[in-house]
Each structure stands twice: as C-alpha cells, then as structure tokens.
C-alpha cells in the first residue's frame, strides 16, 4: 500500500519510528514501581497455602512487633466498612479478603502495611494463620457431579457448581446435518489454564487525600475509566464518589489481558490508604502474579465435524466445559459469557453449527481473562482448526487443500455465519496462496515423504483462522452495562500542533505513534507534531480500554472521526481565508487549495492559527473535536499460518524449524508496528503450544507458580518468524483497518499442534493437547514403537 502522505507527515502506511521509545530506551519510562510519593507506605499480602479451608484464626501480634510494620488488615477489618466483597466485571462476586473461608491457593488472606518493602515482607512472614483444610474441588467435571460440595454457598440460590449455560446455533438442525453426513470426526481437547505473565507484574499506588476526600490510584490497568467507575460502585458508600476518584495508568510493562480485572490487592491498598491517610504501594511478585491473578483459557471441548465423503464441511458441534475457578472473574462483554466463542465456524462455509458452554466453579483462582485474545477466540479457533485437520487426515486429503475447498469464497462477503456473525470482509484463498508460496509448501510435502521413508519425523501444520475483534457495537456489547464504544479528543493548537487523548491504554502496542499517524493521515499535520495521551481519567475522554484488539477498531476510528470533524471546520476557515466558497476547495493532506487554481492554497496550520485569530463571523473559536465511536460491526481479520516441525525420536522434543505467518488486518497504519505485533503474538502462540501451562494437583496446589515451571520461551526456543500480509480493507471502519494485536496468538497454537500431529499422523495419531511437551510426544512414540 502506497502511503497517501509524505514522510514528513507520516500518516498511514509509514513505518514511523515509535514516539514512545526514547524514554524506554534511556531507562526513563514511568512504570508503577517507579512511582514514589512522599510518606508512602508499603503493602504486602499474606496468602493461603491451601486451596480450600476454614480460617480458624489470624494472629497478627508477631507481625506487629516487626520494626516498621504499622498495621495488619484482615477481612474482618474490611467487613466493618462492607469492603470485604467486590463485584467482578462479569457481575459475579469475589472476596477482597476472607472473613472465614479460603477458596483457592494463594488467595489473599491479610495485608501487612509497613514503612518499607522489606519490613512488609518480614511482616507477612510473621503473620500466623490457623486453617482447617477441606477437600477441594479441582476437577471441573467432578464439580458438576451430584455429590460435589457447593462451593459458592455464599450466593443466594446457588445449589450446584454450575455458573451458567450458554449456547448458540440451531441444535436440532445441526443434529440433522450430523445424522445425514457421510463422515463425522470427533476430538476431545483441553486448552489448558495459562497465564499472560507480562514481564511487569501488577501493582498500584493508592493515594487518598483525607483533607480533600480525593483518591488518586496509579495502577497497572488496561481500562482506567471502567476501573474508576467500578471503584465508585464498590466504595461509593464510604464517600468515594466518582468525581473524587482519579485513576492513572502509567507506562505498563505488558498487559495481554491480565491487567483488565480488579484484583484484591488494588482494593486493599486503596482501603489502607483511606484508613491511614497516606499513600500505599502494592507490587505483587512473580509468584503471586502466577498463582493468584486471573488465568486464561481452561476450556474442555468435545468437537465434532460433519462432512460429505469428499470433505465438504456441513456442520460443527462443540460441547464445552469452562473451568472458571472460584469466581467468574473474566472480563468479557456482559451478554457474552462465553466470549466470542461462536466464531468457532472460522473460515469455512457450512450449513449448521451448534456450540454450548457450561461454566463451573472449582477451588482455583478466579478468572477467565483473554490472554492476548478477543474473548475466547483462541479456544474457538484452536478447536476448529484442529478438528479440520482430523477430517483431512480421515479422508486422506491434504489439510491445505481441504481448507481451500471449504473457505467462504471472497464473493460471499459480507457473510452471515451460521452462529450469527456478519463477517465484514475476507479473501482467505489469497492468504493461503501467499503462505504456501512463502514456505514452499509442495517442496516441504516432498521432503516430508522422503523423510518418512527414512523414519524421520517431520510435520507441516496449517491454520487458516478468522478473528472477531473490535468489541463492540453498543446494541450488543457492554461491560457492567457500560457500552463498549471508545473515544478520542483532538485539540489543535494555534501553531498547528495537536494533542490527542484516547479512552484506551497502550501496554506496548505503540499507541503514541499509531494514533498520531491516524491524526496525521486525516489532518495532514506531521505525526511528530501530535502528542498522544492516554490513561489519566482526569484528562482523557471516557473509554473502555485496550484489550481484545479493540484499540484501532474503536479508539483509532474515534480519532479518525474527530480529525474529520476538525477538518470540516478547517475547511470553513480555509474558505474564509481565501474568500471562496467551501465547495470550491480541494483537500490534499495538509492543504486546502482552490479548484482550478492550485497555487491558491492554505495549510492546515494556517487554518489552525486562524481558528484562534481570524475566524469567519459567527464561528466558535478553537479547533478541537471529541468523538465517541460506536462501531457498526466488529472486524474480522484473518490469516494463514504454516509451520514445519521436526521431532526428535529419542527425546520427543519438537523443534519449530520454520514458521510463516500471512496476516490480513485490513489497511495498515504502521507496517513496522504491525509486524512487531505479529512477532510478539506468534511468540505468545508457541508458548502455549509447546511450553506454558498452569496445572494443579488434586489438592489444588499450583504446579507452575514461578518462572521455574511456568515456561516462558527464550530467544533460543523462539524461531525466526517469517511474516507476510494481504490487504482486505474493512468496509465499515473509517480507515479500513481491522486490528492485529492478537491474531498471531490465536493462529499459532493450532498451526504448531497441527504440524506435530501431521508428523505423527501416519502412526494413527489424530490429536495431542497443548502444551505439546517432549514427554507427551515421547509417550506416543513409545506406544507406537518408533521411539529411538
């Protein structure tokens, strides 16, 4: 795509170097733990070693003797203010601190407030808690058995461990398709509990000013405005009304969905600041982060695909059990308890589909956040892309060919999916063609055949995913009732420079650059002259925040719309300055000129100056606009990923030899940043595919509670990603853009899993659950008699 603007303006299509980088490169970022306020105290948390049990007593006396320890807060203390419970973003409830029962390992039990980080840690070690352990419910299937104890007996009317049942599609019609189908394939799969593990953990500095009754909370949040509203709802009864709360999200060291929820630590720090009248800092450590913060995934799926004998897909049926732990603390839109799981029909045209999800409580940490994913899209895509491969292997067809034969054709867009989505645009074959060409698909298949003849194990994995992003249109999408629009406020100064503020919050995505480029594209002001700000609820317009790849589809669109409002006003000013009628003007980026007289022109900067100095009569001074953008539809980016793996027959190790990712995210704002997002997403795809998992033993002990066992890939395990793209613009987004941050996290795991299965398919293997660890592979090699 050729940029419309010059390199000086640096609008869309330019790989502009990031405006935020100089401070990060020189150690001058401002992350949460960098913030120090005068008189600040430290908070550290006592956590439960057991998964389920009664608290018989908490003895703080020794902790209070530790030099520097000022106070120990328990659930009973919070109960006095009715602050011991809080709502989740899914209208469930969870404890802030318990008064009598702990429900999961590492649950917050008490908080120590001290004058230093070290004293607080010593205080935590000195708090003595007496527990009476109970037998926890860990297996989600057992949680639904009749004799299972009801874990959430605190909730009125809760008689079992089921949280909700959700379904989509026409069950009877789908069943009929399955009855009539020539071929039906089935796979059971578990997409396990994982953790975003951003390198910066979560934390906050709560600063309550007792004189003003004003609370400022600096916190690691991806959604500062929504959090402010939640805080007002939780603490309104103790005098913290919304105008007295300011939430500031400073630089964030990675979010990936894990910094959307409100964790008890934030609330306790706020309570401590209010009680003590001093700033209180809480920074969780890595083990707390992995053991207590919101998990992602944990979907047990049984998928079935119905097809004709030649491989034409006719129907899809999925039954899912979702393990939500102690509370439904995911951060999905209210009307979508299973997120956007109904995107599961993916890139394929079919007659019918039916999907159902049952959510259950267990004695594990609460959550269900989207680890770099648009609300359960990862689970849906993994399920579909795996079972498509099962079908291909069953009928003996090349997995790429089977996909091509079932793609929704590009002429069919906008396409109505059987589960109710209207896909805005797509050209799946183009992405497939490009990916096959880049990787040399046919040559690889030949190489595989030769190697197989020599008993070497090599596999080629294909995944053609469709994403659904940009939540979302207000008729369907809200969080706690707040519609999921997003916002931009653009103000052009007299000298032609601008400040633009947004309701989202970058955690590394480069908003300060891409948003400036959007304004540059629309106004022709150099992006270098557009200062972008986010994250301060006192200054930025209200928005729902950054997650689910929604920033460009919503706030980016708002920025474009606000800039267009400004351009409309500038056009009137330009007509006034040149004494012509507005209809006689032509616009090119940065300049209005008179039709037929191109040497008569004024720049956008001229218009900006005039907006403050020389206005047409009756026009309001200034040059600014605010836009709250309510998207008409979601966006549907897609792509085809192909990878090659080699399997060590001795150890079961899987090596990703090559990985080609072809993405289509519509029009591209900054190609360099888009490629960076793909690289990062792919790495957070290989992680869950081969390394990352948080398993529990039967007592509810977290078995991967530190980086010793929660395996984040290093530079040595990560292949040299190869990327490419096609461009199919979104027809409804003002810039034709679609969002890209999470496509690769969604598409990479099934590509890798498919490659491993492909390497073993001739042995009769149809499925392996991720993460595909060497011992899992070796067990199969051993069973099939091919281990070295």
């Amino acid at each position, binding site marked *: 795509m050729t940029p419309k603007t010059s390199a000086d303006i640096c609008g869309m299509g330019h790989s502009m170097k990031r405006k935020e980088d100089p401070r990060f490169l020189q150690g001058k970022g401002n992350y949460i733990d960098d913030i120090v306020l005068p008189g600040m105290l430290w908070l550290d948390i006592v956590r439960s070693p057991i998964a389920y049990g009664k608290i018989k007593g908490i003895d703080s006396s020794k902790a209070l003797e530790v030099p520097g320890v000022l106070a120990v807060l328990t659930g009973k203390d919070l109960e006095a203010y009715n602050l011991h419970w809080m709502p989740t973003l899914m209208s469930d409830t969870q404890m802030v601190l318990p008064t009598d029962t702990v429900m999961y390992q590492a649950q917050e039990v008490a908080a120590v407030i001290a004058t230093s980080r070290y004293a607080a840690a010593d205080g935590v070690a000195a708090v003595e808690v007496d527990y009476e352990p109970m037998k926890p419910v860990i297996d989600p299937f057992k949680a639904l058995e009749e004799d299972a104890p009801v874990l959430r007996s605190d909730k009125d009317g809760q008689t079992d461990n089921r949280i909700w049942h959700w379904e989509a599609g026409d069950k009877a019609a789908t069943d009929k398709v399955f009855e009539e189908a020539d071929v039906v394939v089935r796979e059971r799969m578990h997409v396990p509990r994982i953790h975003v593990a951003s390198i910066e953990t979560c934390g906050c500095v709560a600063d309550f000013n007792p004189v003003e009754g004003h609370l400022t909370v600096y916190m690691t949040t991806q959604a500062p405005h929504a959090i402010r509203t939640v805080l007002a709802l939780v603490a309104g009864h103790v005098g913290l009304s919304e105008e007295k709360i300011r939430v500031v999200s400073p630089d964030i060291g990675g979010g990936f969905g894990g910094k959307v929820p409100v964790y008890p630590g934030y609330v306790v720090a706020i309570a401590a600041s209010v009680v003590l009248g001093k700033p209180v800092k809480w920074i969780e450590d890595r083990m707390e982060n992995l053991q207590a913060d919101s998990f992602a995934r944990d979907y047990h799926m049984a998928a079935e695909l119905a097809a004709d004998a030649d491989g034409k897909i006719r129907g899809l049926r999925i039954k899912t059990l979702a393990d939500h732990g102690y509370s439904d603390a995911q951060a999905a839109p209210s009307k979508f308890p299973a997120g956007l799981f109904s995107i599961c029909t993916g890139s394929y045209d079919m007659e019918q589909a039916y999907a159902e999800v049952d959510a259950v409580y267990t004695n594990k940490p609460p959550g269900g956040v989207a680890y770099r994913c648009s609300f359960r899209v990862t689970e849906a895509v993994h399920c579909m892309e795996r079972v498509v491969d099962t079908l291909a292997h069953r009928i003996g067809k090349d997995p790429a060919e089977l996909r091509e034969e079932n793609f929704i054709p590009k002429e069919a867009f906008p396409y109505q999916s059987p589960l109710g989505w209207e896909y805005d645009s797509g050209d799946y074959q183009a992405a497939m063609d490009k990916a096959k060409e880049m990787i040399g698909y046919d040559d690889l298949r030949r190489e595989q055949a030769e190697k197989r003849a020599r008993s070497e194990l090599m596999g080629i994995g294909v995944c053609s995913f469709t994403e659904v992003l940009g939540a979302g249109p207000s008729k369907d999408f809200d969080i706690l009732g707040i519609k999921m629009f997003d916002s931009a406020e653009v103000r052009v100064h007299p000298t032609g420079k601008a400040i633009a503020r947004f309701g989202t919050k970058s955690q590394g995505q480069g908003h300060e650059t891409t948003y400036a480029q959007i304004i540059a594209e629309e106004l022709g002001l150099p992006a270098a002259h557009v200062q972008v700000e986010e994250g301060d609820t006192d200054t930025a317009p209200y928005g729902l925040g950054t997650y689910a790849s929604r920033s460009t589809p919503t706030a980016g669109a708002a920025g474009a719309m606000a800039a267009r409002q400004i351009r409309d006003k500038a056009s009137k000013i330009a007509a006034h300055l040149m004494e012509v009628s507005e209809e006689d003007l032509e616009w090119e980026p940065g300049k209005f000129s008179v039709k037929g007289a191109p040497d008569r022109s004024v720049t956008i900067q001229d218009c900006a100056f005039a907006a403050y100095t020389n206005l047409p009569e009756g026009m309001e001074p200034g040059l600014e606009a605010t836009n709250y953008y309510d998207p008409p539809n979601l966006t549907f980016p897609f792509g085809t990923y192909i990878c090659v793996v080699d399997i060590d027959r001795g*150890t079961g190790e899987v090596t990703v030899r090559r990985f080609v990712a072809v993405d289509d995210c519509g029009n591209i704002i900054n190609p360099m940043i888009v490629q960076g997002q793909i690289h990062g997403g792919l790495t957070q795809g290989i992680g869950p595919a081969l390394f990352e998992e948080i398993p529990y033993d039967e007592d509810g002990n977290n078995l991967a509670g530190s980086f010793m066992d929660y395996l984040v890939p290093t530079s040595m395990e990560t292949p040299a990603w190869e990327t490419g793209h096609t461009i199919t613009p979104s027809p409804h987004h003002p810039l034709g853009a679609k969002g890209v941050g999470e496509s690769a996290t969604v598409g990479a795991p099934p590509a890798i899993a498919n490659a491993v299965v492909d390497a073993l398919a001739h042995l009769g293997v149809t499925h392996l659950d991720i993460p595909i660890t060497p011992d899992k592979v070796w067990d199969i090699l051993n069973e099939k008699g091919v281990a070295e």
Partner: protein
Amino acid sequence: MIPPQFDYHAPGGLDEALGLLGELDDAKVMSGGQSLLPMMKLRLAGPANLVDIGRIPGLDTIKERDGCLRIGANVTEAQLEESAVVAERYPILLDTARVIADPLVRNRATVCGNLAHGDPANDHPATMLALRAHVIATGPGGERTIDIDDFFHGLFMTALGEDEILTELHIPVPSPGSGGAYVKLERKVGDYAVAGAAVQLTLDKDGKVTKAGVGLTNLSFSPIRASAAEETLLGADFVPAGGLRGAIERVRDAITRASGADDIIAAAAQAAADVTEPVADRRGSVEYKRNMARVLTARAIRTALERAVAGG
C-alpha cells in the same frame, strides 16, 4: 521476594573465613550466590550468617598442575567457557558449563558452588563423576581430599563439614585418546535438567576403551555414577580393524559401523538407565526419565567417542 535478615561477612583470606565459620552460629558459605540467594529470597533458606568467600584472593584460577586440572572455589561458569585449556582438553566441561542456567547467571555462578549446593539437578556433579574428580575441602585442620564418589550424601547434603569450605576441584588430566561429552535435556534455556548424561572415555592406541566414566543428572536424590554402564564400555573395541584417522565425519560413520558398536552403546545406555531412580514430576514420568537416561547416555557415548578419536 525479600530474604530474611542475616549478617554478612566478607573475609579477606581463607584463614579468616575458616575462623568465621568456627565462631558463627548457623553460617553458610557463599561465592556466586546464584543458588543460595534465590532460595533465601523464597525464604526456603535463612542462615543467620553468610560468609562470602568471593573476595578471597587466589581462588579464581583454572590451571593444570601435577597431573590435575585445578578449579578454584570462585571460578565462574563463564570462566570455564572462556578457558583455552578447557576448550582444548576438557570439552565435557565446556558442554556442561554452557547448559547451566543462562549466560547471565553463569557470569556469577561458580563451578564449585554447583557441587557444594548438593542439588542432584545441578549439572556439574554428573560431569565430575564421569571425570573422577576430587574435591578439596579446607577446614580448621587443613585440607582434605574427598573422592567425588564420597561427596554427595543426598538432597542438598554433601560430605562437607559445617566448618569446611570447598576450595578446589581436581580433575585428572586426561590421557591421550580421551574424550567426553555432557548431554542435557531441558525444557528451555534456564531449566533444570529433565535428565543429563556425562560420559568420559579413554581409548588406547588400538581403539579399546581403557577408562570410562558415566554420571547422570537429576535421576535420583543424588547424582549417580552408572558403574554398570562404565563396565560395559570398558574393554569395548569401537574402532574397526585398520584404525581410524581422518575427518570427523568418517570417524562418526566408522564408530557406528564397527562390529557390535551399536549393541555395546545400547547395552551401556540401558545399564545407565537401570540404575536411575527418577521421580515423576512436571518434566515427565518415571518411565520417560529412565528412557531419557538411556537416550542421552547413548548420545553422550557417541560424542565422547568421536572426540576421543579425533583428539587422540
């Protein structure tokens, strides 16, 4: 993660260090601190006193003398990686150093600390077993030499007395025709071994194995010497009639073509697997780990043979 309180001592000489160990209650010796400090941060260890031997001069050298390679208490893994003598004559040590933790940790982690920590998941113990090293412990009564086979006493326990410091490691200089290799299976860089196998072999002029050392990592509560595997290898003739000279590729082919070589390697590898007592955990089942002992031992034998022939 904050360590509990303790008192820190940095003796300037060995005598002072030994004096401190004698005087202080609950004292722990530290050099690089890359194992001990993480345990203290997790509050899994909390000594009242820390005696940092890192500033004692003279303990940071690697040198061959009197038939031994001597590695001082403060020699880091990075020093091993950079050492010319190690690269030339002790490739097994280079193999080992390069798979310990990560390059940054290796800038501070010490070879002797890797042994003194007594962790069966550490990598050097198996290598030192294969190399038949000796541990020099210095205490109030002077130095004593501990055979590596007597050094490991179980999980985090060694033959070192509370008043002793591991001051040096002695590795016999390999005779001509020697070669060794350490092969580790890890889930990712920075992980402890799923399993590891160290093999050191010496061949005579006719290609017969005259010395064999086989050590195993993380396959029991202590590092293991696979004696039966060593016996299987001793006397084996891996080199086909006519001998071997020439490019390493031809050597590699020849080793596996030699009559019965595959069988001997397989038998030795199986013998190694048979002595393991692994524990099932997140890294795999007992069966998997036993088999990894077998697979890795076989691979280490092959590399050791190649190096023995290529070097000798």
